[in-house]
């Protein structure tokens, strides 16, 4: 598949935004149950919600560049019964609304006024938002995992990777954010950021191993229904390429794809972890910010590889321009 930059931005920005919101809400829950992870001031929650919302809006904006007819995007909420894309289109604005209300609630000090049973409105809105976060991870992952003949994607690991990468990058951002806004929380959040990054390393490694062993179920024999071991395409019916040759081939060399794989394996896992450790040891927010930036760039490369690695069976019909 050809990686579309709008989709790379969409999936990575949404992941960071979701992960940041998830991290901040978890801090609030821990505080609510009086687990002492460090005090969070009045600015911590609303500002984090604003950043998370900005990332979600950025992701949504990027998605419009993928559409041929963006002015009709509102129609895409219609088929939620069958389409994961449609479900994502519904869950994303709902999450944005929750994050917005969550930030506003904190800003207006709703936290001091419990509604019932000692639970205030921000805690309740955050719970709904967290549920929507998880649903959005599920929707985003399933958009790819539900396509059964894209065998590289058709695995629960796709959903797991999207979720863990989103949480890891969001927590990385939360670490750098806390270092500036709420230094008391840094060590705690950094530990979770490292934990999610290592978990993502395990699951992404598992999917790399799985995909390396895949045997394509379709072949030229099943594609045209001729049972002969040697079939060669001589013409694909078009001399200058078509939508099929543009959309489904990334056009990069095998060596480039392999180098992207190693680049993202280095940029997503060891480098941010090392920067995280250095940043904590030196107490330098700049290093923690660098850890997030490097990991985010690595995730762009990871997403590029995710698309480039998927080999669409339609490519069997488009091997040769005569």
């Amino acid at each position: 598949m050809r990686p579309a930059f709008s989709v790379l931005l969409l999936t990575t920005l949404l992941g960071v935004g979701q992960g940041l919101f998830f991290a901040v809400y978890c801090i609030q829950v821990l505080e609510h149950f009086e687990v002492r992870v460090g005090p969070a001031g009045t600015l911590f929650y609303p500002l984090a919600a604003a950043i998370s919302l900005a990332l979600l809006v950025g992701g949504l904006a990027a998605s419009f560049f993928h559409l041929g007819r963006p002015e009709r995007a509102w129609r895409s909420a219609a088929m939620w019964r069958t389409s994961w894309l449609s479900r994502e289109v519904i869950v994303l604005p709902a999450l944005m609304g929750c994050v917005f209300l969550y930030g506003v609630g904190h800003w207006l000090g709703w936290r001091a006024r419990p509604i019932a049973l000692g639970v205030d409105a921000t805690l309740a809105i955050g719970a709904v938002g967290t549920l929507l976060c998880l649903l959005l991870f599920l929707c985003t992952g399933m958009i790819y995992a539900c396509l059964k003949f894209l065998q590289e994607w058709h695995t629960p690991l796709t959903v797991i990777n999207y979720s863990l990468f989103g949480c890891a990058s969001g927590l990385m951002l939360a670490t750098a954010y806390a270092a500036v806004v709420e230094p008391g929380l840094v060590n705690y959040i950094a530990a979770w950021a490292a934990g999610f990054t290592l978990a993502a390393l395990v699951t992404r490694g598992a999917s790399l191993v799985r995909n390396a062993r895949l045997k394509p179920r379709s072949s030229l024999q099943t594609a045209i229904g001729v049972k002969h071991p040697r079939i060669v395409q001589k013409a694909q019916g078009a001399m200058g390429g078509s939508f099929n040759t543009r959309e489904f081939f990334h056009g990069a060399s095998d060596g480039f794809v392999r180098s992207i794989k190693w680049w993202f394996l280095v940029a997503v896992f060891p480098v941010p972890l090392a920067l995280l450790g250095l940043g904590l040891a030196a107490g330098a927010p700049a290093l923690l910010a660098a850890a997030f930036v490097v990991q985010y760039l690595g995730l762009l490369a990871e997403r590029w590889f995710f698309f480039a690695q998927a080999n669409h069976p339609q490519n069997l019909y488009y091997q040769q321009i005569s």
Partner: protein
Amino acid sequence: MTQLALVIDLNVCVGCHACVTSCKEWNTSGVAGFLSDDNPYGKDPTGTFFNRVQTFEVGEYPNTQTVHFPKSCLHCEDPPCVPVCPTGASYKRAADGIVLVDYDKCIGCKYCAWACPYGARELDEHQKVMKKCTLCVDRIYDELLPPADRRPACVMACPTSARLFGDVHDPESQVSKAISENGGYALMPEWGTQPANHYLPRRKTEIRVRVEDLERVDNPLKVDGKLPRPRPDEPSLDDVTSW
């Protein structure tokens, strides 16, 4: 239930691309708008087509066969492109099983093209909506046309009658009989899409010459019972009568 479909006889197709040009001519001139072309006479011509004829070489020289392979939307009975569409622009008609795109609802997200293992869908680069074979739905029901012309443009154009059109759910239809009697098959059966379009395989064409075709034999009318044998000295007419 009706499931309209094409049956394409690879044994007969000569790869002349008449179906491609006829399809393009009909469908670029219809109410749904043009099928755009870029650089039609330039270096890298490209455009939107519903139907393409591809060519494959099977076997190793000198034992090779050239297979011309027309490919268009297969109108799957379980089309994977339909449920993924977020807007409902892609749909399968219950009445006749044709899979269609509503160009006024399509947002051009290309997800349906990702979900089609056959590469049957092409995004129009100028209208920015997904396009695909409609089985000439604006033609086959047109009562202003004589009944013989109410067939898809590709079927009308095929000079060798390699393309048959009909209801594959009707066991008495020409297409159903062609499938069952000539070993019709579906493409990529491993994905369970149940394509409605079928292909008829290449078949070895042999001329069978029997001895009876060349030489007159006894009792050609298969009359039962032994015929009276003429005595050796009697004249006989064609070994049948004797007097």
